[in-house]
């Protein structure tokens, strides 16, 4: 009853014309920011912060949150069309999304990304609304050993990202882990693998590696192939540009999986949307009947991670609003914004400012609907991008990549790194090394190392802490199971072959 009353008040606030307008401005800006590789929500929100000082706080938080979740919608666009991940959470989307585009199914891929985002985004808000306080306690039960186990589970997904050769996938992952080690040791502050370069002290930015290996590597490899001037087929007719009913049916499990996993991982302050998208992709593939087709343009492979990175935003607002603990760069700056407007975010925020909380929740329902209406018509429009001949498209991808990297760091050194990783991506393609495991290792490596070393500091060097805590032990067991999947798959093949032989 409390919830119903709260939500009524929330909608009354969010439906005021001014707040509706700010919600629209937020989600529109978010979509644009998400599409631009490099420029992310934290930088955008930081730039707008001084302007919001003049606004009504409710309208301001509605707008800033709109940028946050709106960006998750746009992030998939460049991943699918150009193999350029718009943000780290969209790397997984490249795997199947770009393959779908290559097969002429860019429209359905973009469409399913918007639909999955809408469903999961809404589920995330429902979760935020209904179960925030108990979930916040659940999040606090997580500490370093649990995070280490979660990262291990994420890393185990490598067996599902591997192409033909498991050894090559593991090698690529190890390179990724090594890249994550470059920079300043987080504990002793000594530098590692920096070769005396000041620019490497902060490590290698994920965006540089992902854009280099995915986008530049792909362009280089395609240029060599001397394809037809028209790079990718784009079917005519609106019907071919949107997901079919069959696509939606294929994705029904992905919608649930992405929503639930994304939300639960989002609640954990130390995890993030990238691992959420990787794990939901892995789960989708592990339980799929057509597991072997993943990586060749399967629509669930787009729906699951795109859903996960949207419901993650609802989850990430749980520790922020119920405890005042930000879990990511974007939520940290939302926290700063609340402080700037004179609020004190913390455990008492919801009970003392219910109108802000419920207004935000209601605006997120509205915002997600707006995003769906905004994004679906854009699908046919964006799909036309692929009609451009390669001598236009490839230079555009190069330009976008360079601009994307430069907006993140403003460093010429990073552009040199970008070129290096582009070449690495090309070589990896030639030698048939999968690139996703490398990126996975890079994303999880840093957090995993920190979590392991923190755990060992807690236990004074005993590894027992990793298995003596129930949540951690459970997740490590899951990781072990995942690692055994290829083994079972092989057993199954043998069994089938043996049966065939018997039948002969």
């Amino acid at each position, binding site marked *: 009853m409390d919830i119903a009353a709260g939500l009524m008040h929330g909608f009354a606030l969010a439906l005021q014309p001014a707040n509706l307008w700010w919600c629209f401005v937020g989600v529109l800006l978010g979509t644009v920011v998400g599409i631009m590789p490099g420029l992310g929500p*934290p930088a955008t929100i930081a730039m707008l912060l001084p302007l919001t000082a003049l606004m009504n706080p409710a309208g301001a938080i509605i707008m800033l949150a709109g940028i946050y979740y709106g960006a998750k919608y746009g992030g998939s666009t460049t991943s699918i069309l150009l193999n350029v991940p718009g943000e780290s959470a969209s790397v997984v989307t490249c795997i199947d999304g770009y393959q779908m585009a290559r097969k002429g199914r860019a429209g359905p891929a973009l469409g399913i990304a918007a639909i999955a985002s809408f469903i999961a985004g809404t589920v995330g808000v429902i979760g935020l609304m209904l179960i925030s306080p108990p979930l916040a306690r659940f999040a606090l039960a997580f500490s370093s050993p649990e995070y280490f186990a979660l990262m291990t589970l994420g890393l185990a997904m490598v067996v599902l990202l591997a192409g033909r050769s498991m050894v090559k996938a593991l090698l690529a992952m190890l390179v990724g882990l090594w890249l994550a080690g470059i920079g300043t040791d987080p504990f002793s*502050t000594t530098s590692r693998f920096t070769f005396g370069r000041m620019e490497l002290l902060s490590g290698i930015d994920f965006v540089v590696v992902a854009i280099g290996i995915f986008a530049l590597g792909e362009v280089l490899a395609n240029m060599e192939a001397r394809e037809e001037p028209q790079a990718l087929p784009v079917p005519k007719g609106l019907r071919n540009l949107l997901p079919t009913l069959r696509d939606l049916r294929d994705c029904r499990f992905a919608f649930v999986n992405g929503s639930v996993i994304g939300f639960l991982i989002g609640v954990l302050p130390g995890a993030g949307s990238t691992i959420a998208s990787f794990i939901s992709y892995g789960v989708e593939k592990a339980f799929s009947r057509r597991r072997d087709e993943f990586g060749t343009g399967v629509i669930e492979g787009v729906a699951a991670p795109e859903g996960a990175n949207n419901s993650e935003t609802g989850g990430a607002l749980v520790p922020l609003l119920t405890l005042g603990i930000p879990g990511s760069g974007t939520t940290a700056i939302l926290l700063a914004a609340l*402080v700037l407007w004179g609020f*004190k975010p913390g*455990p008492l925020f919801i009970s003392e400012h219910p109108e802000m909380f419920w207004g935000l929740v209601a605006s997120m329902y509205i915002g997600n609907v707006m995003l769906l209406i905004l994004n679906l018509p854009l699908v046919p429009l964006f799909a036309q991008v692929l009609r451009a001949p390669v001598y236009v498209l490839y230079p555009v991808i190069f330009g976008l990549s360079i601009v994307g990297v430069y907006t993140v760091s*403003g460093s010429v050194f990073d552009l040199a790194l970008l070129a290096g990783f582009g070449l690495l991506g090309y070589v990896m393609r030639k030698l048939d090394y999968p690139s996703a495991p490398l990126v996975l290792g890079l994303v999880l490596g840093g957090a995993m190392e920190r979590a392991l070393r923190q755990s060992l500091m807690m236990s004074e060097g005993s590894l027992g802490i990793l298995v003596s805590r129930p949540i951690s032990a459970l997740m490590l067991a899951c990781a072990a199971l995942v690692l055994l999947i290829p083994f079972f798959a092989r057993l199954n093949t043998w069994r089938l072959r043996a049966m065939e032989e018997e039948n002969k």
Partner: protein
Amino acid sequence: MKTLCMALAALTVAGAPAYAFKPTRPIEVVVHTGPGGGSDLLARAVATMIEKERLLPVRMQVVNKTGGGGAVAAAYLAEKAGEQNTIGFFTGVWLTGPLTSAEAKVTLRDLTPIARLVLEPALIAVKADAPYRTLGDFIAAAKERPGQLKQSGGSVTSRDNVVRQLLQKATGVRWAYISFPGGGERIAALLGGHVNVMVIEPAEAGEHIRAGNMRVLAQVSETRLAGFPDVPTLKEAGFDVPAVPQVRGVVAPPGIPAENVAYWEDVFRRLTRTASWRNFLADNQFEDGYQNAAELAKFYDEFTDRMRTILQEAGVKTVR
């Protein structure tokens, strides 16, 4: 009419002293944290206040040069030698970073000190259901179980760890230190019961204390803070250790003329006299730490000498 003109002229002079230097382009303000980090927020708050109080003829644009615990931002400023429309916000890590990292070559001495702005005191806090009522209780518990109790905090060169080192040295008691890169993770580790104690900034702790999740044992400050009149300082609690503040202030690139330094000193001195600034300090429970350029240079020398000794005693390898 003549008197009016003279009065007007006098007013103008009093309002804005004439300096040979005046910024011509938007000022680039370099900070070492990403959007939302401590320095970033201070710089943006200062930019907003300076605009509101009309202390500068141009706008200020915050530029985030993250990485290397301040090393990247400091090096960026050093590269901009002689650049007149750039300044940066430093914090304690700009001072301690070069002590432990060979790559962090740029010290405050290589840049042009402008002004010190704030000192951030801290609190020593435990979870509300912890058995320790005073800092003495905690020290006694740590004595019983050496190395078993844990503190969450930032990197080893951060103020959190320096306070621990000083307390350990003064009492001969030892407890573990676990680094968490994000402030939120440190608080989550304490509230989740994974660590026993933390050094926390008053503004961060306020709401958790009010909600009854956290209890303060002592304050790392020379005098009691307005928001915590009943909590003893370290000295009052019986621990004779210096109250290490987190410092924040302004630097400029090397090689800028003396009149520019005077101009910036004046801008920030006038800022610290405004009501907005006093409210900002009160909201965040910061202490006014204003020092001019000469005082800041002296402070830097004393501070780094003291930190070097503390870090060496803590077993951290120093390179400068």
